[in-house]
């Protein structure tokens, strides 16, 4: 909030205000394991300085994310970074980077509901940390593409080996990316949009 430090009224900087003609917003969710680059990706494509929203989650014991019947509940605050891209004078796109602890992603009411789609970022050093979220997206019918964030010390697999390992059907795009670079992050989003567009031709999300 440094840029707002002198302001007494919280809110966006003048240059970050959306035009009054903005009718509606859409959202995309970026998911992936801890340290895989979600926040970096949000920051590299956002037109505003990334912001953080938070939510208080009621948690029924460590590692259990569906059972709220337990008497031993604890409240945990979960933070999520997001950014924004103006698409037209009418439409704005928001990008949400999921919080680090996977068990909270699907507790956040409305995070995935309505999202146009998701980007699953994977790190080839820890591929398995993305398995669970991919399964959850499949179960919910949320379309997604996979971005392989390249780390210098990560193993390089041919994309077809990755496709086999991730058990992804041929139509789901897998792309390599370096999310520190705006152009690369943008290309991943373009891949998602082209994929969603292709679904309009097949007429199905499944």
């Amino acid at each position, binding site marked *: 909030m440094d840029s707002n430090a002198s302001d007494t009224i919280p809110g966006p900087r003048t240059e970050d205000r959306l035009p009054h003609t903005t009718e509606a917003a859409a959202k995309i969710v970026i998911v992936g394991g801890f340290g895989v680059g979600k926040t970096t990706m949000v920051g590299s494509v956002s037109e505003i300085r990334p912001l953080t*929203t938070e939510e208080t989650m009621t948690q029924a014991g460590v590692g259990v994310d569906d059972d709220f019947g337990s008497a031993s509940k604890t409240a945990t605050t979960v933070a999520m970074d997001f950014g924004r891209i103006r698409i037209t004078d009418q439409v*704005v796109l928001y990008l949400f980077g999921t919080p680090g602890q996977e068990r909270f992603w699907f507790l956040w009411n409305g995070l995935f509901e309505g999202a146009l789609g998701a980007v699953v970022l994977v790190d080839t050093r820890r591929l398995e940390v993305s398995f669970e979220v991919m399964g959850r997206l499949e179960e919910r019918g949320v379309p997604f593409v996979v971005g392989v964030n390249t780390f210098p010390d990560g193993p390089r697999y041919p994309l077809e080996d990755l496709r086999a390992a991730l058990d992804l059907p041929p139509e789901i795009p897998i792309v390599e990316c370096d999310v520190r670079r705006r152009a690369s992050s943008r290309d991943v989003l373009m891949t998602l949009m082209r994929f969603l567009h292709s679904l309009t031709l097949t007429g199905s999300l499944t």
Partner: protein
Amino acid sequence: MTPPHRRRRHPGPPPPVPPSPPPSRAPAGDDPAGRAEREGEGRQPERLFVISGDGERVPLDLVTLIVARAEPPASATPEQTAVLRMCGAPLSVAEVSAYLRLPFSVVTVLVTDLLAAQLVQARAPIVRQQIPDRSLLEAVMHGLQRL
């Protein structure tokens, strides 16, 4: 070297629908803690509903856009005044939450009260449909190209 393998899953039954909105909302001044208590039994914070342009009730989303319709009245709380000031131009509920440094569910309560008092307008988000809106996707691609 072979990467670890996973097995694909398939769409299951649809996730449970959010709880129906109560027939009449409690008046402004409800505190979120009390609400959570009534909701009871460990449910996540109640999803609050707004009337969309089509007259349907839709939940307040992270990206529902909020626009002030009036100057803050003298009776407004400091938080309400802050929301009305920052929503001179459209702003998502997520952004309001970020700038106020308040949890999303607290902000939805705040915004719902402002909606009930007709001090703000809510613009419902574009949501995923079974068959995606092609012209929207084309607009987004065009917008991304300019980045």
